[in-house]
């Protein structure tokens, strides 16, 4: 049980530390912002509190001092400098390292922590500790605690609480000049408020005493302030009103969606309804509120007010990704779920196939319904795995900061589209390629500050990381405003490496693609900066395995843009099933442009010049029978599937287009994973295997072959 809590503590701490990193980076560019200092303080404060609770003593001790130092920044006693941010970031990394160790951290990590702390203490002008940090039994009770208590509003704003406030002014409250409306406005100003005035008690004109107060209020308030702040509003009317303030229990994970905030329970809690009346009213099929009013158990305003409370709780319960009302699930459980859905999709295909084979209409209709349900289940499961890409963006801000310091450059990262969602596996696998691209931009693209100034650019280079949706794909663009790609240098290097003949002219895009060739990176590119010593070929390979593509564009002297086009998911795709002889293949539906019929004669007449006119464009085509040596006889009328590759279209000549097919992607074994033209496999309804075509590679090779044929013809 404890382990479960510890896992949860670690996960939450990692999230907090990720936030802290982001906050510190923002603080670096906006050092005077008190909100940011407060946010950093709160993050550390929370980590400190929960680490002690779960027995992470080392973290507790370490964070205690960091907290004290941040507190000094908060009170203006310490200036936030670049050095300080550097140390704070290192401290954050250290806490992350400590999190990996349940018990005492290894000696080297502990030593590092000690060094870090003494640097920080020196910076903050705090006395050096006599005892080593790790051996200290109890953290000294310092001023941080007093400050925390004294500054309750800032500290408590970390946590939002919801209060139910019932305010009934005395009838003669007007007599001493109290402005009741002002009180309510002041109260509502404390946070997110839903105010419900009870006006039903106001008598008709003739009976109304103009100097008597008839109204009362129910207020639901969600605020970062504590209960004292609420009492303060009413401090001068304490003895002239009935005031009831209740804090509602936090609507955490356990209670989310549960019955805690049903109308009946709210009314019971308010003491306006008896349990007997409630169960009586619940027996009717009508809405509870209506029944209670009809039976005169409650008045209309009483129900209306309770409904306002219910609405308020709903409203405050869903603050986006704050985690309220959501459940944390281990990612391997989700993976297992996706696998199961994949199996179901395959099984459903078999069911449909069987119903067709035995020509049973009732089974067919069951299969159809089953198919619809499975499609919904698949979509829901896929959505669960979608994460906003912004979570990875943050780590790149740190990368840009650290790299530019190390390389003596000035660069800032601008991000856009952080909310763009894609499959978590894809996000995980995008990390490394993006690191390489960004590293490349800072290392090769962004010039030294002096050079930039000479060229009339701002000293500080800019790297923009943007994500957006485009159909079944996500486009991720990394652009910089550096020197751009040097066409001639790439060409020379390509010739030197034997990647192209000195006389050969390549289209621009293909020339740029050379930088992704293995070993193309200049020695300078393999800096110690990344510590990986790998070049851009890794980017290309990883994006290829993700089923995506890389596109480069550049303007000399102005910068370059790398565009990654990545499929939304890797697990299940919509495909177009085609047949050649007895073999089946899948073309990803997202790249299919259309299907046309071609006669055998026409193809024979084309000979080796495999080009066909499609929508006024000459498209090279690939006879898949030949490519995959499928054997069998070609039919008189063949089908051609036109698909869009990365830069161009390609046609696939097949015997038959079977139709669309939900394709559960199965990876090919290690033996087959490098086969050109195939990106994966799937299992069909009858249990046979269909291969999934790699449209990009097939298109590129068709283009190459076409060029070679044309060159031979020209010669």
């Amino acid at each position: 049980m404890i382990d479960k809590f510890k896992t949860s503590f670690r996960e939450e701490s990692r999230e907090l530390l990720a936030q802290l990193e982001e906050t510190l980076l923002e603080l670096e560019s906006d050092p005077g912002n008190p909100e940011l200092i407060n946010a950093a303080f709160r993050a550390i404060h929370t980590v400190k509190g929960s680490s002690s609770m779960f027995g992470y003593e080392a973290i507790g001790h370490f964070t205690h001092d960091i907290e004290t130092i941040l507190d000094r920044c908060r009170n203006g006693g310490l200036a936030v400098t670049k050095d300080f941010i550097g140390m704070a970031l290192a401290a954050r990394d250290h806490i992350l390292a400590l999190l990996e160790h349940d018990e005492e951290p290894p000696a080297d990590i502990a030593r590092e922590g000690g060094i870090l702390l003494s640097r920080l203490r020196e910076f903050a002008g705090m006395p050096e500790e006599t005892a080593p940090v790790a051996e200290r039994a109890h953290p000294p009770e310092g001023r941080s605690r007093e400050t925390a208590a004294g500054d309750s509003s800032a500290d408590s704003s970390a946590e939002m609480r919801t209060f139910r406030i019932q305010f009934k002014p005395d009838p003669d409250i007007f007599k001493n000049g109290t402005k009741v409306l002002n009180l309510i406005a002041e109260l509502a100003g404390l946070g997110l408020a839903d105010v419900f005035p009870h006006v039903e008690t106001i008598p008709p004109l003739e009976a109304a005493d103009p100097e008597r107060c008839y109204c009362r209020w129910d207020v639901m308030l969600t605020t970062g302030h504590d209960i004292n702040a609420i009492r303060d509003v009413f401090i001068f009317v304490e003895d002239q009103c009935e005031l009831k303030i209740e804090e509602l229990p936090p609507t955490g994970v356990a209670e989310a969606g549960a019955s805690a905030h049903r109308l009946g329970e709210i009314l019971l809690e308010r003491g306006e309804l008896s349990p007997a009346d409630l169960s009586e009213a619940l027996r009717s099929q009508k809405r509870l509120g209506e029944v209670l009013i009809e039976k005169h158990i409650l008045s209309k305003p009483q129900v209306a007010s309770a409904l306002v409370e219910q609405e308020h709780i709903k409203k405050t319960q869903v603050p986006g990704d704050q985690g309220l009302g959501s459940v944390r699930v281990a990612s391997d459980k989700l993976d297992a779920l996706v696998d199961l859905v994949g199996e179901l999709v395959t099984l459903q295909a078999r069911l449909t196939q069987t119903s067709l084979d035995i020509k049973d209409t009732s089974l067919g209709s069951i299969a159809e319904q089953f198919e619809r349900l499975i499609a919904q289940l698949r979509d829901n499961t896929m959505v669960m795995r979608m994460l906003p890409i912004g979570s990875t963006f943050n780590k790149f801000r740190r990368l840009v900061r650290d790299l530019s310091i190390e390389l003596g450059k000035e660069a800032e990262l601008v991000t856009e589209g952080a909310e763009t969602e894609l499959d978590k596996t894809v996000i995980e696998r995008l990390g490394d390629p993006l690191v390489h691209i960004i590293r490349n931009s800072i290392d090769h693209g962004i010039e030294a500050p002096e050079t930039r100034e000479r060229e009339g650019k701002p000293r500080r280079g800019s790297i923009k990381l943007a994500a957006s949706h485009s159909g079944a794909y996500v486009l991720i663009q990394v652009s910089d405003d550096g020197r751009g790609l040097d066409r001639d240098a790439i060409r020379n290097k390509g010739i030197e490496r034997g990647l192209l003949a000195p006389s050969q002219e390549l289209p621009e895009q293909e020339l740029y693609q050379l930088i992704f060739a293995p070993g193309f990176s200049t020695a300078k590119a393999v800096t110690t900066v990344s510590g990986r010593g790998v070049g851009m070929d890794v980017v290309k390979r990883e994006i290829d395995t993700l089923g995506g593509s890389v596109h480069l564009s550049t303007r000399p002297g102005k910068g370059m843009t790398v565009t990654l086009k990545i499929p939304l998911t890797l697990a299940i795709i919509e495909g177009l099933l085609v047949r050649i002889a007895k073999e089946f293949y899948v073309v990803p539906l997202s790249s299919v442009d259309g299907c046309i019929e071609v006669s055998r004669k026409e193809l024979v007449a084309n000979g080796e010049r495999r080009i066909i006119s499609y929508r006024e464009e000459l498209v090279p085509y690939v006879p898949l029978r030949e490519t995959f040596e499928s054997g069998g006889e070609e039919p008189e009328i063949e089908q051609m599937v036109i698909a869009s590759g990365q830069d161009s279209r390609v046609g696939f000549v097949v015997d038959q287009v079977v139709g669309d097919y939900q394709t559960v992607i199965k990876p090919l074994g290690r033996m087959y994973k490098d086969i050109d033209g195939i990106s994966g496999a799937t299992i069909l309804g009858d249990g046979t295997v269909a291969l999934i075509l790699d449209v990009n590679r097939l298109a590129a090779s068709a283009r190459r072959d076409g060029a070679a044929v044309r060159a031979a013809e020209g010669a």
Partner: protein
Amino acid sequence: MSSDSHPAILHLLPTLSIDRAAEFKAQLVEAFSASDDVILDFSSVEEIDLACLQLVYAARSTAGSAGKRLAFSGMPSPHVMARLSAAGFLRAVDPNEDGASLESALIDM
């Protein structure tokens, strides 16, 4: 005094506060006795407190039970609207919207 079919229009003062509440009540009572159709013109109102607001509700209640009509015309100052909204007296309608009136925005009894 018999009721008239002409509407009685009551132009409200800029400041409707407790010290004018008794006077306001008297005006309302008089307007209802003069006509079956009373219109309260809020266009000059820049300040209203709870005592006077209660009287507006009381007038509504009287109109309702006596089968008379009470209508509002003109919008009070934005400050008044903001105050009424903060104290929960206005429905969630945008008071700046065309066609919005205090009459439609003020919550029922």
